[in-house]
């Protein structure tokens, strides 16, 4: 049972998927699993809803946050550049237990929240035991 739950979690970064461009920023994520739903949070500061692209391709979940590039204006000296003007990109492998059709994404203050429900058949079932 524990092993099965483990598979349901999007935990592995895929190296099979080609990133859209070289030199992306890998956003930090939190992943929680609660019963029949897996929730993923990703920090994507500066990415608006319109610039966010979440895709599921077979067993790969791709998160791509485009950022407005072009702060290299003339006459500007950069003292700190800890978040360079690059896109956010990260890919995860998700198990068969995740219901692809029911994945929802919300964006709030630069935090992406992905809700990944498990399919009906993989949900743990409660079996009532009758005492006779």
């Amino acid at each position: 049972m524990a092993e099965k739950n483990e598979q349901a979690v999007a935990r592995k970064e895929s190296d099979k998927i080609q990133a859209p461009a070289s030199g992306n920023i890998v956003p930090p994520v939190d992943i929680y699993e609660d019963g029949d739903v897996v929730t993923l949070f990703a920090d994507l500061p500066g990415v608006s809803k319109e610039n966010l692209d979440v895709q599921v391709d077979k067993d790969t979940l791709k998160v791509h946050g485009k950022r407005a590039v072009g702060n290299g204006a003339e006459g500007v000296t950069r003292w700190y550049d800890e978040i360079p003007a690059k896109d956010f990109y990260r890919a995860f492998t998700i198990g068969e237990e995740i219901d692809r059709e029911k994945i929802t994404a919300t964006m709030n203050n630069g935090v992406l929240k992905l809700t990944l429900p498990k399919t009906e058949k993989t949900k743990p079932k409660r079996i009532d035991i009758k005492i006779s």
Partner: protein
Amino acid sequence: MIARWFYDLDPVYNDFSRLTDVLDRVFDVGLPLANIRSVPRGTFPPVNVQEKKDGVAIQAYIPGVEAGSIEVTFHDNALTIKGKRETAFKGTIHRRERFSGDFTRIIGLPEGLDPDKIKAQYRDGVLAITIDKMEEQKPKQIPVKIT
């Protein structure tokens, strides 16, 4: 002891060590106006700072907080950004990479900035602050007359 022995005997290692020592010293002294690459991994919030003709622009990347909960102060040419971010959620934790808790970041800025001309805006998880230079610090165009 053995390391010391190598250090003294190997001329290449010796030179290289001396170089890194010098570099370390150069970049450590400058805190908080440190080198771009010298910020330790996991520093929260990460910031970008640019100097422009008439002021400086600071972007602090603080996703997932309420705008009103961020405390920004400017004193003695140091900009302080303070706040708290809670990331806890229900369920079993499988990955926890995002920063959680109290944070303070102090950014040293050069003299000549006007403390009365600070603007701060929070949008899409980015706190954007601009501080104008004092009038006398702004570059002036001097017209050249033909005599």
